[in-house]
């Protein structure tokens, strides 16, 4: 027994000695002339895969286009893109994998994973953009390395509520259907506060939408007993289209106001006739608007044997999110810094407005040291004749 004790003690002592001498840090490709690595956390098969897939395609297409165009300062972009199926632990694992590969920036996806990685990216000093426009990510004091390229969900809901108040012209009941996750919950409180701050004559009740539900008749009957005339939806296209179909099937008279992730062609296509007359709050201009910023994508897609009409607006969204990151990297390289996360962050904050050819909000995205809110303007569209018809563009709350 004594012998064993000695062995254990000796082993413990060696272990302690070993912990004292630590290995060297991970490799970084940052300051070489090799490709610039960007990690992409994508949802292709998860709960939000319907809109995540075109978004991811748009990002990768931008990288392909940019590399064919000479890359950034002669260096290629290498996008490492993997599916995480909207699962936060998987996103954390992918993040560590990318970190180890020596990426200089991360393109994320959902609100849950963006918020979960928020403190990590600031500790590891990696700029992080995502398709989540949650308000908390815009505050550099809380999330110094997160950049939000579009008006936040809260801003979009504010615009939506303003529109409802104007449309109703008097008191109105609003049912807020939301995805039952951090993504869906993100704008709720700000929306309620907005109603009381602005003195809008609205009453808003929130209803979480059960995931994988065959229909939303139950939810609609709750909204009906609330007396709701308007339904604001913070969810992705497929469930929102289901709500639109259920409204028609139940013979209800309710108007949907879709925010961002359900305000798209997919919603109109899958809801068909039932989509008519519903309102879509969408900061990214759809391809049908044929703005200057769409041309470059359209040309690229023609070469690929596709078209913007086929790919939809989330493709544009992915393309321009990657564009903004690439511009930040280009600026960091131009100012002669080593390509580190901090250099890219400072470049993005100091470079002024980034042109998006009119596609994002009011057209330009600008960050500063005090605010990582790139845009506040959004378009308001109505679904009419199977297309998104603009009602107002560049609306700010």
């Amino acid at each position, binding site marked *: 027994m004594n012998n064993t004790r000695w062995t254990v003690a000796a082993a413990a002592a*060696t272990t302690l000695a070993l912990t004292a001498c630590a290995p060297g840090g991970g490799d970084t490709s940052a300051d070489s002339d090799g490709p610039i690595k960007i990690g992409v956390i994508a949802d292709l098969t998860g709960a939000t895969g319907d809109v995540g897939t075109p978004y991811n395609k748009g990002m990768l297409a931008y990288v392909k286009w940019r590399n064919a165009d000479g890359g950034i300062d002669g260096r290629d972009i290498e996008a490492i893109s993997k599916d995480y199926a909207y699962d936060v632990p998987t996103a954390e*694992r992918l993040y560590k994998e990318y970190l*180890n590969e020596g990426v200089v920036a991360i393109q994320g996806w959902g609100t849950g994973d963006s918020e*979960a*990685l928020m403190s990590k990216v600031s*500790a590891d000093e990696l700029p992080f953009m995502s398709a989540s426009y949650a308000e908390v990510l815009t505050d550099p004091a809380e999330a110094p390395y997160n950049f939000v390229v579009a008006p936040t969900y809260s801003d979009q809901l504010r615009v939506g509520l303003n529109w409802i108040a104007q449309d109703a012209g008097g008191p109105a009941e609003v049912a807020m259907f939301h995805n*039952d996750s*951090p993504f869906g919950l993100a704008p709720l409180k700000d929306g309620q506060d907005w109603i009381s701050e602005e003195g809008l004559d609205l009453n808003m009740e929130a209803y979480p939408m059960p995931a994988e539900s065959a229909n939303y008749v139950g939810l609609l009957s709750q909204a009906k007993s609330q007396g709701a005339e308007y339904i604001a939806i913070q969810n992705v296209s497929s469930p929102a289209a289901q709500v639109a179909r259920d409204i028609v099937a139940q013979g209800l008279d309710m108007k949907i106001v879709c925010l961002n992730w359900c305000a798209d062609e997919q919603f109109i296509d899958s809801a068909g006739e039932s989509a008519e007359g519903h309102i879509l709050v969408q900061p990214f201009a759809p391809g049908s608007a044929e703005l200057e910023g769409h041309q470059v994508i359209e040309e690229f897609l023609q070469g690929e044997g596709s078209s913007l009409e086929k790919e939809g607006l989330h493709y544009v969204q992915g393309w321009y999110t990657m564009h903004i990151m690439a511009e930040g990297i280009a600026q960091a390289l131009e100012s002669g810094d080593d390509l580190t996360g901090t250099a890219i962050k400072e470049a993005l904050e100091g470079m002024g407005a980034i042109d998006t050819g009119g596609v994002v909000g009011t057209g330009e995205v600008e960050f500063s040291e005090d605010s990582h809110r790139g845009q506040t303007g959004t378009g308001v569209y109505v679904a009419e004749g199977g297309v998104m018809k603009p009602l107002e563009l560049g609306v700010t709350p």
Partner: protein
Amino acid sequence: MAATATGIYHRSYPRELALRHTRAEYSRLALLVLAMVAAPYTLDFYWLSIVNTILIAVIGAVGLNILVGFTGQISLGQGGFLAVGAFTSALLYERAALPAPLSIACAVVITAGAGALFGLPALRLKGLYLAIATLASQEIIVFIARRWSFLRDGSAPLSVDRLQVGGFEISRELFEFQWYWLLLTCAVLSVLAARNLFRSGLGRSFMAVRDQDIAASAMGVNVIRAKVTAFAVSSGFVGFAGALSAHYTETVTWESFTLEVSILYLAMIIVGGLGSIAGSAYGAFFMMLVPVMLNELISGAGAGIPALTSRLPAIENAVFGLVIILFLLLEPRGLDRIWQRMKDYIRFWPFRY
């Protein structure tokens, strides 16, 4: 369980009580120790981060095995108890500014209490009925974590400051490396504690309840006490794993503690071996490595096949299900039993037994 293989003789009582008897066992232990010491110097930080998550899973799996494998009380509430541990420790560390070891210890105690509370239905329910009752505990806990704004930082999930113990703080550059030693120590201590538990009267009463509760009570085992204690002890381990994961991942969100997590842990102990402490560790390693290895395999060999890479999570789920079915069909006693059979084969060779 406590029986030793034929052909091994003991010359003294302490030798009989030792955890290991043969020279081969000691040399395997030495190899294991060597591997554990070498790991952080040979693996890069990505792989080390995977090992770290596995070490946390080992503690959780050991906890679940105490309940399911040793006491025979099936539980689908693992994710919920991990959440209790994680939130408790994070809140005490962040809001009440308790030192980390103390907040983790409190998390263990509180999760044990929660486990005992949710284990009360086990006094009346068995088998599938108990599974549904524990499913309720999972859903209730996650529902609370989802809805209670106290458990969030404003609208962001609860973030935990970098771990600080005494004057020592985990550094950014050596994050995974330093955590490895911490987690390894915790995992080894947990495994030893669990091993020890089943050499004590309490542990044996758990097994008696599993094998035949009526016979156990006839023998004088207090079945009620055994069941509730099993829930408490098991949840204590799980709470420990949850608390460590909170400090390690530095963010606590309910999304990491869903029902899928509970099922993953059940899969771990089924694959590893029900009623085996070593099996829990094997199972944790195996199940945590399946998605990682699939990822490596598909992004390495199948890089040219987008049909594979774009369906990775679906393939992951399919492989997951297949692994569990195959284990249940071919070796219900799991990896632990396979390992034992391999050892026996070599030991008895050229004879069958």
